């Protein structure tokens, strides 16, 4: 093998990679926050809702979980714009990621909420907590605590999956890589660099979620290790 590795493009193009990584972080943080919100509401409906409310949520979860994110992104970006709803690549990306994240979060949070025993709700009633207080302090926080490891690995998976939004030219990290490699013809080096950046990002995310977990759930500290 007489291939000469050449990483010299980094000297000139590193700001592009930083900008791409920053957009990846922005896209995913917004998608995670909104997706968690959608998923939590849907999970509450799936457990406590009436039958008529449960059915559409169930359909939503199954439809999203059984189709590829790539196709979902195409439907939002190309499909909706052909119907007259023109959205920028970034907005389409966030919408698709939120819809996707919401479905997976619903299933995870549902498992957590179902693990809260009925007696807990009765106790909250006896203590005179309002409905909202009960939902937040008795149901949601303890439920989230139980499924937190699953939630945070889903968040990391979403961050990695956000690379797919490069296919509708959202200028995040992977799209940046495609751009730089088409300028420099150093595709092997470029993708290795980007793979490393993703690896670092996923470690940072896991560490970040571990810290957030420590702050949110102070009652017991059995959340596993940092990484």
């Amino acid at each position: 093998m007489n291939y000469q590795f050449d990483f010299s493009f980094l000297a000139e193009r590193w700001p592009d990679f930083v900008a791409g990584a920053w957009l990846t972080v922005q896209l995913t943080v917004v998608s995670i926050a909104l997706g968690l919100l959608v998923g939590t509401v849907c999970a509450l409906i799936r457990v406590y809702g009436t039958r008529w409310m449960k059915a559409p949520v169930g359909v939503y979860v199954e439809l999203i979980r059984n189709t590829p994110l790539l196709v979902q992104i195409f439907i939002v970006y190309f499909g909706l714009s052909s119907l007259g709803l023109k959205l920028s690549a970034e907005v389409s990306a966030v919408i698709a990621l939120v819809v996707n994240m919401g479905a997976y979060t619903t299933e995870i949070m549902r498992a957590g909420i179902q693990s809260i025993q009925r007696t807990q709700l009765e106790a909250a009633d006896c203590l005179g907590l309002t409905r909202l207080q009960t939902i937040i302090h008795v149901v949601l926080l303890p439920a989230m605590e139980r499924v937190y490891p699953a939630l945070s690995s889903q968040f990391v998976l979403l961050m990695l999956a956000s690379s797919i939004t490069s296919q509708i030219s959202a200028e995040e990290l992977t799209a940046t890589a495609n751009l730089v490699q088409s300028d420099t013809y150093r595709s092997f080096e470029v993708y290795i660099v980007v793979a490393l950046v993703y690896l670092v990002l996923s470690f940072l995310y896991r560490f970040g979620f571990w810290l957030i977990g420590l702050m949110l759930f102070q009652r017991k500290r059995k959340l596993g290790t940092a990484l």
Partner: protein
Amino acid sequence: MIQLNANHFIYLLQAATWTLLLSLIAFVGGSIVGLAVALLRVSRVRALRALASGYIQLIQGTPLLIILFLSYFGLGIMGYKLVPIVAAGLSLTFYAAAFLGEIWRGCIEAVPKTQWEASDCLGLNRFQQYAYVVLPQAVKLAIPPTVGFMVQIVKNTSLASVIGFVELARAGQIVNNSTFEPFVIFIVVAAIYFALCYPLSLAARALERKAHAGR
């Protein structure tokens, strides 16, 4: 511009068979490599455990899309030009192996320790312990999550479209390029994926329920 017609849908269904074939390659390849990863992960040799765990961390921390780009464009520029189906098959194999390896490690570790001890007492060697005692019990635990992961494999084959392999998602793009009906086409594409994945999801759930009922 061409009107969307029945031939387009037949074309999409034909492309879906490539999706199935690629899924099969990924699953078979991923199972072979994944079993090796799982066994290394529970090995008694520390270095081997670390190696397998490093591999899993590396693959699970990198997007599949980047792995595909590396094996198609990256290796191509280094002089190892792979045809898209080989590049996609290899990438998905190594991707699936990391996840299956981790799932199966959990299943092997879930076999009670007393089973190891009992087979030790019976004088079985390490290979016999795995072949006759531990793996048969681990397989039983492994089936529901493995079927569940097959859904992920089928969905992830859609990414092979980015390196020009004409499977379902790429076929959808091709049809869209001549008819400009993205909404209808991608809904149909999504429906075909759903038809492939939903039975697997249902099966995984049913198996899960059966496994729990048995205990």
